[in-house]
């Protein structure tokens, strides 16, 4: 029984990291209606920026916030120069461009930062917060989940109670109509990418202490993060967090208790994606999309 709880806690620990990246994916989808395959690599790049600042003496929290700010600008520039010219209709082109950004960002990071792994300073200590017998909940996990919930709350406030958030929802719903009522669609799209890039930077900074900062930081996570976003619903930030935790727990429990998934945990994430897309495509918290024919 203790093993079970331990695994659940492990799963939650993993899941928190998936949730962080999933938040960025969800934000991009919610505001720009596209899947950004490069989100992980952009996050990794930003995390390196945070690491450089921290390494040069700045306090960790400041470094992370500064990296997030830089990422906002970077994301906005990418949207304006690379994504906007493609147009929203050509799905294949968008997929190719985001894959191209994936490749280029990964290679650029390798060129600038080199391929060695780096140790990323922790915000939260890796010590136990609460202990139930042999089962420990670390400060770090609790801290990450707390931060994510705060972010979800802030996003809720943004989308539901600010003019900017309303504009973002309008653009996502119908860009042409939004333009007709006077919304600067281009700026909103750039903002969407910028915010998502900032969340990616946050996700990377939260994940890096555990996983060690290297070029491959996000690659192992990307599919899990997509599974989390799919399960939670691609337009629901809360869904991203909940989805992430569920994916994490499912992954560890499946790996532990089902022979087939032992050493093959990614298969459980894949199965999850497939089942969700076939049975309930909008995920747990997302809104069902109804297309007029």
């Amino acid at each position: 029984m203790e093993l079970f709880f331990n695994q659940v806690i492990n799963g939650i620990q993993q899941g928190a990291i998936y949730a962080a990246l999933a938040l960025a994916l969800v934000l991009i989808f919610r505001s720009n209606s596209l899947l950004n395959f490069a989100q992980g690599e952009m996050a990794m790049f930003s995390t390196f920026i945070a690491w450089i600042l921290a390494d040069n003496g700045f306090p960790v929290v400041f470094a992370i916030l500064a990296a997030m700010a830089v990422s906002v600008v970077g994301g906005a520039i990418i949207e304006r120069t690379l994504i906007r010219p493609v147009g929203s209709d050509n799905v294949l082109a968008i997929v190719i461009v985001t894959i191209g950004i994936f490749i280029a960002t990964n290679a650029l990071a390798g060129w600038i930062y080199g391929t060695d792994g780096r140790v990323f300073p922790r915000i939260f200590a890796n010590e136990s917060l609460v202990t139930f017998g042999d089962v420990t909940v670390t400060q770090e996990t609790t801290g990450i989940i707390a931060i994510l919930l705060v972010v979800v709350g802030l996003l809720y406030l943004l989308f539901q109670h600010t003019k900017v958030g309303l504009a973002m929802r309008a653009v996502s719903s119908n860009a042409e109509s939004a333009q007709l009522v006077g919304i600067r669609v281009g700026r909103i799209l750039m903002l969407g990418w910028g915010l998502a890039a900032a969340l990616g930077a946050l996700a990377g900074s939260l994940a890096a202490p555990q996983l060690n900062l290297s070029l491959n930081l996000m690659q192992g996570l990307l599919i899990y993060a997509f599974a989390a976003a799919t399960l939670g619903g691609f337009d629901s930030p809360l869904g991203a967090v909940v989805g992430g935790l569920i994916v994490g727990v499912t992954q560890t429990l499946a790996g532990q208790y089902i022979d087939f998934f032992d050493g093959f945990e990614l298969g459980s994430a894949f199965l999850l994606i497939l089942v969700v897309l076939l049975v309930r495509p909008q995920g747990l918290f997302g809104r069902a999309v109804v297309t007029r024919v």
Partner: protein
Amino acid sequence: MTRLALTPRRVVLGVLAVVLAVVVLYIPQYFVEFRTAQFTSVIAISIAVLGLALLTGFNGQISVGHGAFFGVGAYTTAILTADHGWSHLSTVPVAMILCLAIGVMVGLPALRISGLYLALVTLALATLFPLVIQKYSDVTGGSTGIGVPDFEPPDWASGLTEDQWAYYVILAFAVVTFVLVRNLIRSRVGRAIIAIRDGEVAAEVLGVNLARYKVATFGISAMIAGLGGSLFVMNTAVLDRVDPSQYTIARSIEFLAALVIGGAATIMGPVLGSLFIVFVPEFSSDINAELSRVIFGGVLIVMMLVLPGGVLGGLTRLEAGTLRRLGRDRQWRRLRATAAEADSPDPDGSPTVDGAAT
């Protein structure tokens, strides 16, 4: 039977085709073993990319996972030849049928998923493939892989070296495959496939059975990719083992890149794209190893912004533009002629043709 008109364009293309054929047939005689084998892998890859072109370029179903089908074909041939003593060529039908079955199995759920989500699912599939290989390592040799026995020329072709023999065999398969796919695209079936891409609802209204065509296209596309994989492994002059590191998500991305660089909805695009992705990284990494991947990603992005139709698309636009500028565009002339007749009885004045369709 109507005779084929001998237009200047056709003459030029015909001459080009003959020159190309001579060059292609001469390659193994001219280049060293390694280079010839590189060309052989280009051909095998272009078959796989052709499969992807059928599914993604002509049918509009985005697959970032064709590396997995390629890998299935490759491993099928490797396992059957290495562990069960099959001859190389006899493994080809097995690989193809297996991939057809898997393609149909993937194509069925794909009916309910479209666009970006399908790309996501196929991406996950391709990421999963090397893990599946490692999971069943008793059969597949796990991370160390399987050594593939040499693909020797038979006695009647003993004048050829191993690499030359592989080149010609794989070339033959490629020619047949490309001709068959080209004929498919130009048939009623092909038009239905393309109609689905251009407007599913409209196609359905016109009587195209969406489910049947989409699943069948997925299956056939996977089958062709599997054929490519199976042949890829027969390139034993340089490649004497299969291992999962050759069939990762990078392979799928490579195929997609080759597809869009060459021209997504074209038949010869895959060949151009495959040449690009095999040779350019080699030369660009001679110039600067680390930046070459950055440039590769950059090229992909720029391609989509500037030449969404790939190189072939760009050439087609160039041809049309040049013809128009030279005033030799027959369509344009015909349009002006009919407009001139309709507009004015005055033979001297050349009426302006405004807003004419391009």
